[in-house]
């Protein structure tokens, strides 16, 4: 620590610049990951946090709930598949809702009472017991979606009362209301009086004890025509927006990791080359090579960890300062993971510099001019 720390404190500018670059790159990684996590939660939180473990879309929906419509008899067809414990209709639609004095895009997530599809993350209040009662997703109280509040869907004949709040239950980046399927059907008809029949968006099912959702999914796909069944995890991961966002952001994060590692590795290599004279002197007067390598690695740890802390702090500040309508947050676990990865990779990248240190021949100290500072 002695040598490593002395050099850092007396050549502050270089190490601060490197720490700054590492910090900003870690900030990018943390920020982008937090945003992606929030975006994905905002996109499909409602699907992820409802009680059905298998979702059945129309075959042409391409795993997009919004684009899916299944015939009413699909519900009984799915319920009849061996291994299905219960099945019910799931209605999804985006409506203009008068809440908090403003008209707001709101997603309706409707299920039949007593059937799968109810929200699983209710944190206050209760589940709906009657039509035109709803559980609202959290994080939208400022928009008027508060426990006990009354909201009105445009063109609807009745107001809706919010009887519960569920965590992380938004859909399509909109406030979401979990309500009864009958409410959904009535709302659709109110919005479009010409509608003859209101079809469910999907069928949502649960599996018998001892039967996995994947097995039920496969049986449904095999048995019921014109549909595509997915497990809940699949429905979340393969939702059209989620997959492409996840891959795109993944590529960005990978590039950021690359840059951090290359910059850190090259910096310490250059520094080692520049310090070659001092290092040769130290070796000549009896300092072990291992001690010098340890000093190098200590510097890597100090600078990179410093950068990780700066990056995490910046990420936290940026997400808070931005108003953060997505509810993005810096997860400590993710930050620690990112920090550990950046540190581990930087240490590996510093092996080039370590090799340089080990190759120093102390006898070079006796070559005239070789130790000119």
């Amino acid at each position, binding site marked *: 620590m002695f*040598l490593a720390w002395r050099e850092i404190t007396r050549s502050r500018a270089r190490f601060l610049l490197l720490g700054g670059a590492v910090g900003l790159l870690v900030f990018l990684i943390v920020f982008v990951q937090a945003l992606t996590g929030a975006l994905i939660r905002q996109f499909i939180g409602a699907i992820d946090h409802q009680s059905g473990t298998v979702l059945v879309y129309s075959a042409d929906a391409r795993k997009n709930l919004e684009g899916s419509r299944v015939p009413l008899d699909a519900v009984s067809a799915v319920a009849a598949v061996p291994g299905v414990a219960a099945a019910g209709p799931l209605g999804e639609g985006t409506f203009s809702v008068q809440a908090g004095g403003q008209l707001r895009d709101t997603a309706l997530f409707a299920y039949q009472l007593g059937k799968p599809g109810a929200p699983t993350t209710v944190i206050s209040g209760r589940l709906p017991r009657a039509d035109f009662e709803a559980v609202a997703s959290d994080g939208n109280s400022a928009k008027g979606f508060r426990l006990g509040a009354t909201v009105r869907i445009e063109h609807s004949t009745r107001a809706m009362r919010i009887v519960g709040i569920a965590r992380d239950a938004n859909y399509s980046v909109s406030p979401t209301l979990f309500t009864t399927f009958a409410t959904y059907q009535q709302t659709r008809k109110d919005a479009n009086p010409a509608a003859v029949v209101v079809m469910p968006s999907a069928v949502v099912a649960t599996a018998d004890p001892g039967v996995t959702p994947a097995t039920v999914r496969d049986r449904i796909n095999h048995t019921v025509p014109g549909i595509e069944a997915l497990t809940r995890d699949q429905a979340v991961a393969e939702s059209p927006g989620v997959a492409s966002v996840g891959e795109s952001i993944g590529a960005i994060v990978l590039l950021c990791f690359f840059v951090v590692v290359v910059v850190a590795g090259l910096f310490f290599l250059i520094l080692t080359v520049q310090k070659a004279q001092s290092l040769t002197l130290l070796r*000549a007067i*009896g*300092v*072990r090579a291992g001690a010098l390598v340890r000093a190098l690695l200590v510097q890597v740890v100090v600078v990179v960890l410093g950068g990780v802390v700066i990056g995490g702090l910046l990420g936290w500040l940026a997400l808070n300062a931005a108003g953060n309508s997505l509810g993005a947050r810096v997860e400590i676990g993710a930050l620690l993971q990112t920090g550990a990865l950046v540190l581990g990779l930087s240490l590996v990248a510093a092996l080039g510099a370590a090799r340089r240190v080990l190759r120093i021949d102390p*006898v070079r100290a*006796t070559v005239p001019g070789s130790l000119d500072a």
Partner: protein
Amino acid sequence: MTALQLDHVSKVYRSGDDDIVALDDANLTVAADEMIGLIGPSGSGKTTLISIAGGLLTPTEGSVLVGGENITGYNAKELTRFRGEQVGFVFQTVNLVPFLTARENLLVVGELSGGRAGRKQATTRADQLLDELGLGHRHDNLPRQLSGGERQRVAVGRALMNEPKLVLFDEPTSALDTHLGEQVMDLIRSEVKGRGTAAVIVTHDARVTTYCDRVVTIIDGRLAETAAASA
């Protein structure tokens, strides 16, 4: 006790098909508190000799004993330990670690080899040495804040820090003016003699030899003759 004993030491480098004999059957004995001047033209083998004596190079033939310790067959690790504990070096140009203070330059080997044990003791010793070397007010200065002569004195202090049996000086006054050079040589002599440490001083400055007990000449790798110092 003999501080340094070289018996039939040779160092041969292979260059293509040729053998380059840097040191040829060198025999040299340096007593415990003797100061030897080693003089010779460029390329005569002076640097090779002190490198072998200081455990920076291993001889091709012969044996090397420093303070009774036979270092001839030592591996790199053992030589590193030996250099840290038994030998002091002052290299040709001033050679301090630029980001360490004067005190820290003296402590560096102890810190990096010995760890925390005896750190307080070592610090006290370092401060004492610096005071003796006339650098009492410079303990916390970085090398760039010191004059050429002050840097040279710090280098001497570092060389003496581990109480070596033998200190090797490579052209200690080449970068100094006459007055400073004399000051440094006075200092070296008084420190070396006062501590009973042996010293080998490589130089081509005839004035330096006046501070030495003996002068050894080296030409083409052979220790040619010894002469008593004129002082």
